[in-house]
């Protein structure tokens, strides 16, 4: 009896399975438009190309694949709209592909090797050197020349051996967030301007019983961007640099040594929140949102999320405190959404058209506003009218500083950050005797990567 039922069930499962399978067998890989059609009133009749390039190809009927992680962080349907507008203007179709941010690098590497890389790809500054060296991404300088694009309007271009391989589309500044509620409770009314003032305030606001700390720094080695965004920010804010003529300059660098010791002091005096070595940027944001951290250096893009999570928090922005006695301009760390073109893309002319479209002043401005970021085109005039006053405060701070991120365009940037991270952890834990030792050890490791 049981055998019969088993057989019956087995056969029905098989039958159902093969039916579904037959139905969908031809459906594998079909690009679905069902979910992305949110275009508002397409002017389908108007196929007049408004781009200023001289490329002869009409571009009609060509489909470009655009792989990015941005869609998740923009308002629903926004990216689809932008791409649809482009299609209306030029007749070139854009297929939006999305990947989880954390795995995008692996995907691009695998895609480049197996020839499945998308035509246009979102890139992070720290990947450019390696992908350019491997020949996975295309030389944009040449493409821009051929299409007659005026690249002076680009605020930045990330280069490798003299040629551009990635263009930052929008920039995310990393100012310092302050939880004014914590400060006020501790009787502090003014934000610190120098490092020693910061230390004083930090001691006042840190309260282990209430589980409140002054600062947080994410030092997880899985994604060591904490070194770039939360550590080096201190260095750059005081006009320091970790490179000299493009080579590592960690030793004999007073600013660097001072910064390392400053962080060590914060750590030793328990002014930083626990869990540093396993903390990622997202974790740090959660700690801040829950009122456990007074100061944090973080991407401006988080402002909305934090406000949603903590609507009653009194947030303010401030410049990263400088070294005592420093009076020069401060550097502000920026991360960005960069864009590049695959080397094995068959429609490079159309691809550069799309890139130029995203970089055009109007579109770029719209993107910047939607992403809570700053535009990559110097002529773009984003309409931040609806934006928070806080956002404008940060924008002001940004304009008073110079944008800097020395990790962009370095060889194996992520690995550099990781080794610095590990050495820093050893020093913080007391394994390494002094900052100089830690830095010279890191210098050795870095120099190897630069060969």
């Amino acid at each position, binding site marked *: 009896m*049981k*055998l019969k039922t*088993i057989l019956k069930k087995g056969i029905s*499962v*098989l039958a159902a*399975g093969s039916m*579904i*399978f037959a139905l*969908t*067998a031809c459906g*594998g*890989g*079909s*690009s*679905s438009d*069902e*979910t992305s059609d949110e275009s508002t009133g397409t002017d389908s009749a108007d196929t007049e190309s408004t781009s200023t390039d001289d490329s002869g190809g009409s571009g009609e009927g060509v489909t470009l*694949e655009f792989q990015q*992680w941005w869609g*998740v*962080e923009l308002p629903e349907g926004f990216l689809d709209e932008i791409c649809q507008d482009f299609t209306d203007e030029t007749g070139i179709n854009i*297929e939006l*592909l*999305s*990947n*989880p*941010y*954390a*795995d995008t690098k*692996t*995907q691009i*590497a*695998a895609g480049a*090797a*197996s*020839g*499945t890389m*998308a035509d246009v790809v979102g890139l992070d500054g720290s990947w450019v050197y390696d992908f350019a060296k491997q020949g996975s991404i295309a030389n944009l300088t040449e493409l821009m020349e051929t299409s007659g694009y005026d690249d002076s309007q680009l605020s930045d271009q990330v280069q490798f051996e003299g040629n551009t391989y990635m263009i930052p589309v929008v920039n*995310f500044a990393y100012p310092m967030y302050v939880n004014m509620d914590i400060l006020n409770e501790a009787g502090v009314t003014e934000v610190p301007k120098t490092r020693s003032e910061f230390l004083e305030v930090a001691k006042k606001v840190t309260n282990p019983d209430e*589980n409140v700390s002054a600062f947080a720094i994410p030092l997880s080695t899985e994604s060591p961007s904490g070194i770039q965004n939360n550590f080096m920010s201190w260095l750059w804010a005081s006009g320091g640099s970790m490179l000299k003529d493009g080579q590592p300059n960690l030793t004999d660098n007073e600013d660097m040594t001072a910064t390392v010791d400053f962080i060590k002091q914060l750590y030793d005096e328990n002014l930083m929140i626990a869990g540093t070595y396993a903390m990622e*940027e*997202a974790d740090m*944001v*959660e*700690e801040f*949102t*829950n009122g*456990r951290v007074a100061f944090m250096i973080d*991407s401006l*893009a*988080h402002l909305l*999320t934090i406000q*949603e*999570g*903590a609507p009653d928090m009194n947030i303010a922005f401030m410049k990263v405190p400088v070294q005592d006695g420093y009076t020069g301009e401060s550097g502000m760390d920026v991360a960005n959404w960069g864009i590049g073109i695959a080397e094995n893309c068959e429609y490079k002319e159309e691809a550069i058209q799309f890139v130029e479209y995203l970089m055009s002043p109007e579109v770029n401005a719209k993107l910047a506003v939607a992403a809570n970021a700053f535009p990559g085109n110097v002529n773009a005039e984003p309409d931040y009218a609806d934006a928070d006053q806080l956002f404008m405060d940060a924008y002001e701070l940004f304009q008073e500083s110079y944008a800097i991120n020395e990790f962009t365009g370095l060889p194996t940037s992520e690995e550099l950050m990781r080794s610095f991270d590990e050495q820093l952890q050893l020093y913080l834990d007391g394994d390494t005797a002094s900052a100089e030792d830690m830095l010279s050890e890191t210098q050795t490791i870095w120099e190897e990567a630069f060969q």
Partner: protein
Amino acid sequence: MAGKKKWYIKLFIIVALVMGALFAAFPVLWMLLSSFKPNAEIFAWPPTWISENFSFDAYAAIFTNPEQVRFFLNSYFVAMVVVVLSLVVGILASYSFSRFNFPGKSLINTLIVSVQAVPPITLLIPYLSLIVTLKLYNTYWALILTYLLFTLPYAILMITGYLNTLPKDLDEAVMIDGGSRWQALWRVLVPTAVPGLVSVGMYTFMQAWNEYLFALALTKTNDMRTVPVGINLLMGQHAYEWNQMMAMSVLGSLPVLLLFLFFQRYFIAGMTAGAVKN
């Protein structure tokens, strides 16, 4: 005297069971509770149990998103096909290992086991290139075949083990009556090995359902992607949708749970009818 002893044992068993259940289920309970909280509250201190802002928002977001629903359908479909194929191919191979001795048996056996030993991440690029060459990229077949490769060694090993516990007398009984080996296999051995087959099937389903790396690498468009990829897509560069991730995981585990509930009666004692008395 015997009654008293039984009382002790029963209590011990119950206590052990409850402690074990806490160990097993508490994290899952936490996951469930978190899926009903707004994002920021998930990290509140002191932690809250049932949120004041209890809401089904996370679930609503998933159900109203056709892309996410598609992830579930894809996962379910791929996993089912993989289970069926794994069992069928696995049974055939196990029969060979269990009932025959032939030259090359040890070699093939060793190979089957050891191919699992290659770290998937190193296999990723060459394997991807192979799939692309075979024109299977971004299709259901790519996932199905890949998961088959992952689960076959386990299936073969375990089914061989289960078949080995069934005496050869059973086969012989059928063949003496004029039946073929094929009939012996499918009419007698397989039904008797059902508990083992069910556990292998469960494992296979789980493997296919939960796999992430190759699901991501072998697919390009969201209409081909599976639940684990869907969950990871909720981790943006700047913000994680924690409650949605928890909700999606809860939803993702339901089909597997249902399958388990459905098939678990095959674990119950009573299938010992297969053991031939000596």
